[in-house]
């Protein structure tokens, strides 16, 4: 049995990685201690809690306090600004640690695969969300908000988040932690209408009830749903939707029967409406949409009828997609690392002691807490392997040696105290302007605070 602490690296400081760290560090009855190093590509932790959750959902962001309490546990260390693939590879990492858990999420996005998708003014919703949330990789992006109408393709929570942020009154956005550059751009926005397109029937909307209902609570916004696009009793009876889906249909039906109040802004929800092509010379000018109809099997088929929507901004929110890491197996169709109960691949094509959790394990589904269970399952598999001595215990570096090795690879390593300095600074900046925080979106700025002697930060 192991006579030193079990040393585990977690790659990614988002919810699945932090839940995994929490499960590892809260094991009461093990014959050995556990030490966890969480590695993060950015100088800042918490993944999509910081860069994905909408700024007008501050209550959900409170989960960061749970991650902070995990970070305060003995045995926890944070190494920010370390990227697996850039600073070191999976084989090396596996040598340095007894076990490695990949919790890298799904940084890519799916494409619609339609003509004109690359025109200016056509973006993935991920880009837009990352931009308004101050993700350093997206702070230089520009979105054309000068037209009157935006179109959002997709029917998940991200589609609704994006529509809501585009329609929220400025005085409500001001009180959030939305990135300053986005606040400024949205203040000048002339968009008065957001059209949300769902290819399938409302019975297949991937959005959740809380997010859907919230659209109905927006001040100064009319919600428009065409009753003829909602499923009739026969279609509902054929599909036998569960209670969750029934509630979505009830909400949409209620909106479809409302008379628009003539508010200055409006959101149109179109169902059975498939994007076919974007057109324009350099910039998107319009989107052609095909009307679908439901089939008996529960899917949809084109009716052949089409219509056009004039718009200069098209955001596709049709799903995240995981990215491959060189040196690890990958399923490009599903965008996940193949695994069994969180164990990566089989012994032939993956380093021993390599695991996955979160979206890179199961695909981009569920909400924040879904990852708690997902990570618990992975940690259980890892600890079973450790107890059965199936992990490669020889050659593992000590905590001190591994910290020195990271520092040698990247002098601008961000430690947890560095993140705490960023956090304090952002909150201070926020307090001076009546906002929860003012995010610093530039890497150099973040490093300048987190790593006082930083070469990059000093530039």
């Amino acid at each position, binding site marked *: 049995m192991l006579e030193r602490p079990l040393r585990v690296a977690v790659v990614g400081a988002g919810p699945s990685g932090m839940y995994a760290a929490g499960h590892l560090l809260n094991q009461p009855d093990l014959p050995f201690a556990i030490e966890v190093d969480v590695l993060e590509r950015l100088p800042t932790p918490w993944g999509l809690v910081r860069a994905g959750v909408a700024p007008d959902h501050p209550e959900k962001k409170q989960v960061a306090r749970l991650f902070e309490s995990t970070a305060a546990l003995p045995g926890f260390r944070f190494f920010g600004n370390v990227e697996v693939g850039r600073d070191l590879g999976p084989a090396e990492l596996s040598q340095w640690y007894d076990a490695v858990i990949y919790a890298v999420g799904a940084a890519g996005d799916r494409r619609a695969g339609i003509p004109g998708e690359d025109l200016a003014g056509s973006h993935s919703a991920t880009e837009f969300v990352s931009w308004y949330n101050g993700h350093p990789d997206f702070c230089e992006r520009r979105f054309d908000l000068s037209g009157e109408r935006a179109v959002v393709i997709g029917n998940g929570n991200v589609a609704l988040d994006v529509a809501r942020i585009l329609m929220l009154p400025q005085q409500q956005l001001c009180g959030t932690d939305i990135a300053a550059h986005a606040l400024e751009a949205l203040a000048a926005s002339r968009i008065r209408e957001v059209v949300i397109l769902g290819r399938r029937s409302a019975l297949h909307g991937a959005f*959740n009830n809380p997010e859907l209902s919230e659209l109905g609570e927006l001040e100064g916004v009319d919600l428009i749903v065409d009753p003829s696009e909602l499923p009739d009793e026969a279609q509902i009876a054929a599909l*036998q939707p569960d209670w*969750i889906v029934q*509630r979505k249909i009830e909400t949409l039906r209620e909106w479809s029967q409302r008379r628009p109040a003539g508010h200055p802004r409006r959101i149109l929800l179109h169902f059975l409406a498939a994007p076919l092509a974007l057109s324009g010379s350099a910039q998107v000018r319009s989107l052609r949409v095909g009307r679908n109809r439901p089939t008996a099997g529960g899917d949809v088929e084109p009716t052949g009828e089409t219509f056009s929507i004039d718009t200069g901004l098209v955001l596709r929110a049709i799903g995240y997609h995981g990215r491959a890491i060189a040196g690890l197996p990958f399923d490009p169709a599903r965008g996940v690392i193949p695994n069994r109960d969180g164990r990566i691949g089989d012994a032939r094509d993956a380093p021993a002691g390599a695991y996955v959790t979160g979206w890179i394990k199961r695909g981009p589904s569920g909400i924040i*807490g*879904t990852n708690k*269970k997902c990570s618990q399952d992975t940690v259980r598999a890892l600890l079973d392997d450790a107890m059965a001595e199936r992990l490669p215990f020889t050659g593992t570096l000590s905590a001190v040696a591994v910290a020195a090795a990271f520092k040698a690879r990247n002098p601008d390593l961000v430690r947890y105290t560095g993140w705490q300095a960023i956090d304090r600074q952002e909150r201070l900046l926020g307090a001076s302007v009546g906002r929860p925080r003012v995010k610093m979106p530039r890497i150099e700025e973040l490093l300048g605070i987190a790593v006082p002697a930083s070469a990059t930060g000093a530039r």
Partner: protein
Amino acid sequence: MPYVIASPCIADYSCVEVCPVNCISPGPEEPGFGRAEQMYIDPTRCIDCAACVEVCPVNAIFDRNRLPERWQRYAQINAEYFQQRGKPGHA
């Protein structure tokens, strides 16, 4: 008055782990967990101990009498979740 889980819920299920009467659902071992939008409290079994309130990382749980105005409907939603279970086509 029973407690009610409202819209901030992220399905972290710390509440399920501490509930002494097991009246919060769907927990991580239940089949509906992977698709859960939130957790729900059964108002007919809640004993008002508030143990869940303490552990919720996002402050999503309220005494029914103290539900914020915009989340009033969640009292009904929590109750309905348990009423519809067991019926055909339930969540």
